[in-house]
């Protein structure tokens, strides 16, 4: 690398989004070689159609849940109940629609959506109340709803899968608008709103400050309780929208399986995106990237035909690599080993270190 390039490249190489972008690119590259027509996007029935569209379409609920999770984690909290909220909101909306005389009536569907989202916000606020009002640790407070929430969803659906046949409802998660999947448009809207509220207004700073040190923030005049309540309610709302999308995509509500383990995927997406679990800082862009990596990984597994028995292992390997690359401590260690050749460094560590050396000191 020439000396003149260094100052230009350094900010890129040190950017915290570098490694997620590299991994996403690597996954896409894998598909370029192993999957026929992975990058083909065509028009079908007046909307875009292709594997890339699928990734964003099926990834949309995860992106939403992860956005809410990002803010919660930024306050040094965690929300395990999002999967249950996903199930509840979908179940309530589908139950309401299934009992409508005319399932295609827009008013009825809007009421169903409002009911689902209203309950989601209320459940999120309940989490916020437990955390901020009573002072229960977030992982415990939200664990309550994680376990109980599935029960509530099953209660709503009566343990059955509720099938609905409503075209306005179908639009939310399975429909298209302006050739784009409607889910993506919702995601973009929520993302834009969140980015505006947290990055253009002071809200983001307040959230980070509460996450950094809630007591100090309170003494500095920030209503940390209010901020916490709001963040958990927002997380509930995001999960609620995701729940509507998931159930609308298959026109049915499944209290048992809808959103199962999505909380873990969401936490992973947030972490891959560079938000610290210790709170105090967050990256919305990183989270979106993290969620896209997870969904691309899933789609890749289906497309290149990884046998189902080894799917989890394959996922684990990729996630391990991502997390190691993301960790400054690991990179530092690998880098130091390179400088002391006597140390018994593994071949892969050598390689890592080699790249790092090029990046930082060449």
């Amino acid at each position, binding site marked *: 690398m020439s000396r003149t390039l260094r100052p230009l490249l350094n900010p890129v190489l040190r950017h915290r989004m570098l490694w997620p972008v590299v991994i996403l690119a690597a996954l896409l590259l894998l598909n370029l070689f192993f999957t026929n027509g992975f990058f083909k996007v065509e028009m079908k029935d007046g909307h875009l159609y292709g594997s890339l569209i699928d990734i964003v379409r099926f990834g949309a609920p995860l992106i939403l849940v992860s956005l809410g999770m990002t803010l919660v984690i930024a306050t040094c909290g965690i929300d395990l109940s999002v999967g249950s909220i996903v199930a509840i909101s979908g179940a309530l909306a589908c139950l309401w629609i299934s009992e409508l005389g005319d399932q295609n009536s827009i008013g009825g569907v809007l009421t169903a959506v409002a009911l689902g989202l209203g309950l989601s916000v209320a459940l999120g606020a309940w989490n916020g109340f437990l955390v901020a009002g009573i002072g229960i640790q977030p992982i415990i407070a939200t664990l309550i709803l994680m376990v109980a929430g599935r029960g509530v969803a099953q209660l709503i659906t009566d343990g059955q899968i509720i099938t609905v046949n409503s075209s306005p409802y179908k639009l939310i998660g399975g429909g298209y608008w302006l050739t784009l999947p409607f889910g993506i448009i919702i995601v973009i809207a929520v993302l834009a709103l969140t980015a505006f509220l947290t990055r253009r207004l002071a809200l983001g700073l307040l959230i980070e400050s509460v996450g950094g040190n809630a007591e100090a923030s309170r003494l500095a005049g920030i209503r940390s309780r209010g901020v916490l309540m709001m963040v958990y309610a927002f997380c509930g709302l995001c999960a609620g929208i995701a729940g509507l999308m998931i159930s609308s995509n298959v026109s049915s509500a499944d209290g*048992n399986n809808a959103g199962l383990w999505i909380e873990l995927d969401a936490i992973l997406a947030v972490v891959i995106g560079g938000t610290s679990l210790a709170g105090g800082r967050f990256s919305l862009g990183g989270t979106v990237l993290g969620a896209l990596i997870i969904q691309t990984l899933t789609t890749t597994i289906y497309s290149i035909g990884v046998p189902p028995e080894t799917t989890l292992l394959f996922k684990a390997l990729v996630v391990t690599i991502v997390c190691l690359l993301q960790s400054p401590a690991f990179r530092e260690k690998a880098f130091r080993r390179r400088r002391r050749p006597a140390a018994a460094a593994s071949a892969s560590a050598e390689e890592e270190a080699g790249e790092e050396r090029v990046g930082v000191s060449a």
Partner: protein
Amino acid sequence: MLRRIRALKSISALVLAGAVAFTMAGCGSSDGSAGSSGSGGSGGSSDGKIVMGFSQVGAESGWRTANTKSVQESAQEAGIELKFSDAQQKQENQIKAIRSYIQQKVDVIAFSPVVESGWDTVLKEAKNANIPVILTDRAVDSQDTSLYKTFLGSDFVEEGRKAGQWLVEEYKDSTDPVNIVQLEGTTGSAPANDRKAGFQEVISADSKFKIIASQTGDFTRAKGKEVMEAFLKSNPDIDVLYAHNDDMGLGAIEAIEGAGKVPGKDIKIITVDAVRDGMQALADGKINYIVECSPLLGPQLMDLAKKVVNGEQVPTRVVTEETTFTQEQAKEALPNRKY
């Protein structure tokens, strides 16, 4: 020093309190179990009331709910007291439930294993407690068959074979290669393993049948749709879809329609189960063939339970009565469908 003594005192008080609570709990539970065994065991001979502990997989589909209802209703009809628990798809919940049944000293334990493996320890505990175990619907892969009395349920391998036989019959006049995609059930579950094996066994006789892609859809509609979307993009030429249950097939139908193809015509669909939504799709021509997997095994289960508790010999394998449906048969059967 004084403070230290006080601390010691309070600690010992705590320990004591704990010990008391523990022994009391011990007494309570032993009392409880003695009581329940009294009403169960001895009561079993005097008023004939058998106590059955039943651990269900979950309520993941309409099929499972119908299965649960069938067990509950026939228990009531047969005069058997049923202790029911829902494992919510988790093996550890099921093991916990079985252990609690052993503690409660029920007369017979019946359960549908979530997965095939890992049951030996808890089943040995049941055997040591002299409680007979009946497996329903799904088998376990234990080497030691003395761990359970009998297995009542569908023959999933046979279901796979039936699906394969229809396919062979459907394409008997054609020599072109037939590209098949398969949506498997939850990885490691008996129905997924067996339905795959039975199907494979039949179609492998003719080399024109090729399974070009096979992935798990976890028996759910959402996953079935997601996986089918990926199949449709990476394999432009699909002739047949074989889904291990109706729900995944229903999800896949949406994906196929989204790709601008006609389910049932452009891509022939075979599923297993025959739940109401699936039968509806079959009658509408979107599915071509359904192999029934009947959940209504309650009456047979109660019958077996009575025999087992009375010490009668029962066959180690009892198969539930099942059939298959074509589109015409579905139209006839649909109005009287229970689930």
